């Protein structure tokens, strides 16, 4: 007689290597997933493939030379990275930035936030499986913003436009008109994304309830930016510690309560609308005037001291900790990267999900590997 065995198969978990050269890891990020069938049991992330020692390099350079390396630290939102750096230098050297320069800076960082979020929309669409369409749509509007940046600063990605004290040079004469053109294009793009993804049943089914993280956990992991606001924590450096002119204009902190991937998408979409509002108000406030303080020395030197400056970059809190022992270069520079902190929550959010969902979770954090590794 053949008896049916009650013995179940003993299965062994499989180690699946993703990256570093994999398009869905948004750069050179490598993770080793322990998978049981299709379910992720553990994730071991490996970072450092893009480590260039930018912080250490900046310590060998004077304050102006360091700006170019800040661009390369956060290449999708270079203006925001530059802003943190130059604000740290300004606080050390006690420089007063003229009003016009502050308004222009605000316009530029918000436009850069739009460009960065558009990039997220496109890349995230690909992660979810809407191959191509949102990516190309996002590129169209991002191109408008980048063309504007090229007309202002001369470069498309590595702007090197902000300077300690103000701006490198003034914006072109048709700046306001061009900004309004770009905002019209971006509004159209936001409407397109809204129509394409927000209510799309396939997209919603693919993203809702995936990669949940509670508000308490998000705080414990030190997350920031849209990733934490999607869990219901209204943490925004622009509201907590207003810098530039953020306390003089009207805007809202966008929060969602679900804490899942879909909430993070909605949060970024809402933030794009807020950024458009901010830029429109800034354009009305823009007055002629100086863009650099009078009597800037040829070589900027700072008194000894240490500062920590944080700003709200598209991915969260971008902080620069700078120590000066006098002279024309920082003694120590440390970049607090939002992506690195947000990435810590990846394992927490993806364990127990399917492999394909882990990719979406990674995409929803919107990491830039050059910022993680520096």
């Amino acid at each position, binding site marked *: 007689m053949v008896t049916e065995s009650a013995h179940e198969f003993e299965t062994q978990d499989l180690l699946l290597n993703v990256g570093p050269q994999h398009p869905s890891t948004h750069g050179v990020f490598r993770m080793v997933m322990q998978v049981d069938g299709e379910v992720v049991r553990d994730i071991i992330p490996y970072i450092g493939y893009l480590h260039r020692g930018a912080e250490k390099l900046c310590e060998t*350079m004077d304050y*102006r*030379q*360091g*700006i*170019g*390396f800040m661009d*390369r630290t956060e290449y999708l939102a270079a203006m925001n990275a530059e802003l943190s750096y130059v604000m740290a230098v300004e606080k050390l050297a006690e420089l007063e930035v003229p009003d*016009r320069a502050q308004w222009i800076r605000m316009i530029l960082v918000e436009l850069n936030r739009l460009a960065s979020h558009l990039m997220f929309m496109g890349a995230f669409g690909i992660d979810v499986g809407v191959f191509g*369409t949102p990516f190309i*749509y996002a590129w*169209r509007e991002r*191109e408008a913003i980048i063309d504007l940046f*090229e*007309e*202002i*600063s*001369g*470069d498309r990605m*590595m702007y*090197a436009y902000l300077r300690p004290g103000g701006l*490198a*040079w*003034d*914006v*072109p*004469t048709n*700046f*306001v008109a061009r900004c309004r053109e770009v905002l019209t294009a971006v509004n159209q793009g936001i409407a*397109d994304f809204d*129509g*394409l*993804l927000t*209510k*799309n*049943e*396939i*997209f*919603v089914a693919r993203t809702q309830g995936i990669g949940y993280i509670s508000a308490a956990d998000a705080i414990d992991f030190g997350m920031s930016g849209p990733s934490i606001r999607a869990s219901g924590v209204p943490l925004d450096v622009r509201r907590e510690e207003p810098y530039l002119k953020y306390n003089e204009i009207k805007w809202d902190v966008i929060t969602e309560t679900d804490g899942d991937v879909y909430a993070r998408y909605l949060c970024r979409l809402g933030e794009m609308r807020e950024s458009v509002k901010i830029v429109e108000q800034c354009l009305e406030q*823009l007055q*002629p*005037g*100086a*863009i*650099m303080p009078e009597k*800037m020395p040829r070589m900027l030197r700072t008194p000894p001291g240490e500062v920590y400056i944080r700003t709200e970059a598209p991915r969260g809190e971008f902080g620069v900790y700078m120590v000066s022992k006098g002279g024309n270069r920082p003694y120590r520079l440390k970049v607090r990267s939002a992506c690195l902190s947000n990435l810590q929550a990846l394992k927490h959010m993806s364990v127990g999900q399917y492999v394909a969902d882990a990719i979406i979770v990674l995409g929803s954090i919107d990491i830039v590997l050059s910022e993680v590794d520096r």
Partner: protein
Amino acid sequence: MRGIAKSMMTTLSVFLRPPVTRDYPNVHKALPERDRAFPLLLWDQEIDEPFCTGCHACERACPVECMTVLMKDNPNHKSVGGTSSRRKIIDKFWIDYARCMRCNICVEVCNFDAIAMNNTWSGHEMSVHDRKDLVMDLQQLTTQSHSGQIKEWVPVLGKANEESAS
């Protein structure tokens, strides 16, 4: 289903808009005046020599150390019967375009407005087979300005530009 129908309507509306792409190698977009490609040396057409005196300001300010500058006594100086008021002039100048990070600092520190960023397409389409070919010497750096192919943009620094105040 309504959501999917709406998505389809979005793609359809985009399908009916005019194209935004260009047929790149055949059609080049117009570059803005401030476009930054790689640095070039400018040519003083009146005296027919480079503006550069070889003062090493750019070499010292370069964050990535991509420049090498050597100066010499100007053979065309007034004291030796020439027409130029430059006592020293550039002898040899190399810029390693493969190292250059196009930060514009060399243009800002130049006391003689002798260097400018190439703002034409010739500065962008520079693919070569050997990276040694990207080390430019004095002759290669001055040719474009000498023949008047570029109209350089040198920013006014530290002052509010009256024209561009909106």
